[in-house]
């Protein structure tokens, strides 16, 4: 009976690991690379911080569209979700675009893609940090 209980319930170590993994994922989303930094994967942490940061800065510099929560259609809502993936860098993109987006030229359109890619890439990195903390990825 005791064995059955032990088999179905996860041990405190596993619970702690799961909590740490969730914290790593959340930290990785909030600040790109932080999830890996908490696990002392410094190379990955620095590279993810720089790549996501570069995509956000370039995208905002090209006056790409930083979507808001009050998007008028499904595409704007999806764009908002993608942009939000960049975590705190979403706010950086907003700050870096005082004159707003200009998608009337190809440059602004490219910028929109850069910003969306930064968000989606950061979500991938956060997911990787979560999986690595659970011991599923190296």
């Amino acid at each position: 009976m005791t064995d059955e209980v032990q088999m179905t319930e996860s041990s405190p170590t596993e619970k702690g690991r799961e909590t740490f993994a969730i914290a790593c994922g959340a930290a990785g989303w909030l600040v790109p690379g932080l999830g890996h930094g908490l696990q002392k994967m410094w190379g990955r942490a620095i590279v993810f911080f720089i790549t996501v940061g570069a995509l956000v800065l370039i995208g905002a510099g090209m006056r790409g569209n930083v979507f808001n929560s009050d998007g008028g259609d499904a595409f704007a809502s999806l764009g908002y979700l993608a942009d939000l993936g960049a975590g705190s860098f979403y706010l950086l993109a907003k700050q870096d675009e005082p004159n707003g987006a200009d998608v009337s030229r190809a440059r602004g359109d490219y910028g929109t893609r850069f910003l969306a890619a930064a968000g989606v890439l950061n979500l991938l990195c956060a997911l990787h940090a979560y999986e690595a903390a659970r011991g599923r990825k190296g």
Partner: protein
Amino acid sequence: MNVHFTHFQAMLLFALVISVAFGFLSRRRPLDRVKYMLWSLFLFLLVGIGIGWAMYPFSR
């Protein structure tokens, strides 16, 4: 900050940054990472330029 790039420069920069991130995400050994980055960069450029040329007949 105001950034100006040509279409090709923007595509090249995008491919380069994403390839580096993919290399670090999916490979662990440094040599494997470099190989993956180069292969990913090559495919990004090949597909981008290929689609560009495929659209050329319909551009005018």
